[in-house]
């Protein structure tokens, strides 16, 4: 599957193989086939294809995956720089993630 790839060597995705329990959830949720499972352990096989959506780390029951997730949206970055955080569209980029209860700042919604 050859597809569009964004910038090289920028992605913050990290995998701690020692923590991985090999459940394969990360493979199911990743929309860009970044990970694969070999001998019961996940492996990052296509790092540059990662878009930092955070689906893998959120659904990892062993907390083996981590990524500075956010939405890769220039308009959102500009809005945040200009302090327009309550914009209905593209108002937030760095999701204030709280993995333990799975909630994020729900007041700031976005469109994209």
């Amino acid at each position, binding site marked *: 599957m050859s597809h569009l790839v964004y910038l090289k060597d920028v992605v913050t995705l990290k995998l701690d193989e020692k923590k991985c329990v090999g459940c394969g959830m990360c493979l199911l949720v990743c929309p860009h086939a970044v990970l694969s499972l070999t001998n019961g352990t996940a492996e990052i096989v296509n790092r540059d294809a990662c878009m930092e959506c955070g689906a893998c780390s959120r659904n990892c029951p062993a907390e083996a995956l981590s990524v500075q997730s956010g939405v890769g949206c220039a308009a959102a970055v500009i809005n945040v720089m200009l302090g327009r955080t309550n914009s209905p569209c593209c108002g937030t980029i760095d999701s204030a993630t709280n993995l333990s209860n*799975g909630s994020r700042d729900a007041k700031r919604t976005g469109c994209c």
Partner: protein
Amino acid sequence: MVKAQVSLPDLKQPFVSGSFETPVGLVPQVSSFLKVSDHLGTFKARWGVGRMHYTINPGLYALGTPNEKSPVLVTANFKMSFDRLREALPGRNMWILVLDTKGINVWCASGKGTFGTMELVNRIESSGLAQIVSHRELILPQLAGPGVAAHEVKKLSGFKVIYGPIQATDLPKFLDAGMKATLEMRFKTFTTLERMVLIPIELVSALKWGLIIISIFFILSYLGKLGEGSVNALNHGLFSGLSILIAIISGAILTPLMLPWLPGRAFSIKGLIMGLMAIAILFVFRFNVLITWANRVEIVAWLLLIPALSAFLAMNFTGASTYTSLSGVKKEMRWAVPIQIGAGVIGFILWLGSQFIG
């Protein structure tokens, strides 16, 4: 179970075809057949008309005539998301649990956390789902992954999250294969058609500012050349307005359309190259007027302005694209934005000079 906790969606919403009896009360019944008004709604939302308020009531809906064993699909309360889902399931009897994502689609809402674990857990509770179905499984769109932690949903609600395919249109195959998605179903593409449907909203938002800028360029240009007669001034004004319009077309239409074939990885580079190609076409029609210094300066001004605007608009398309990371966008913006601003300011000063001096 206290029945007062259950809140059911309004039965009087225009797309609801009937009401359906459940142990917790009447829930709205919908069909997979979309009416003209539903299609019109999609069209309007694509063009940004009422897009932020294109919502439906959250809660449980019956697609066809489901029973206690029927699968439960989960989606967002953006009406377009709901319509794409039911439209993909003709002849199926299923439950659709709609989360309150403030009218935002599944993927954006999950990225921002509104399509999230807590909303799902609370919605399972408030819909009375546990009293309606005998099983404990939910089918979520794969793109809900950034917001929903499947293992936490299981822990908090007892319901097992099954991630379905990315595209609703793959659901029948997924269901018939015993809830197994192929690798293709799990891969987010960005095909020409997928990019094309995003162009209207890009164009509308670009033109909101663009029309003001086009008018300013037209007026300044007209006033600057009024000394050469009103016909000449009008021509010149129109040319200036047209040039800005071409930059917008280049950045907001042609770049998204040509994305895979334009060189470079950064969207700004793709937009810049498209802008340069657009200029080439524009100046084929103006080669006969390179006589004066003012004309030459004006050409240089457009050589800066059009690519800068085109690159900026292309860069904004990262938000609509399906594969750009935040780290990447920030990296691109660190060098691209200063260049865009620099080229824009210098270009504008040169252009003003070419209109009023010489």
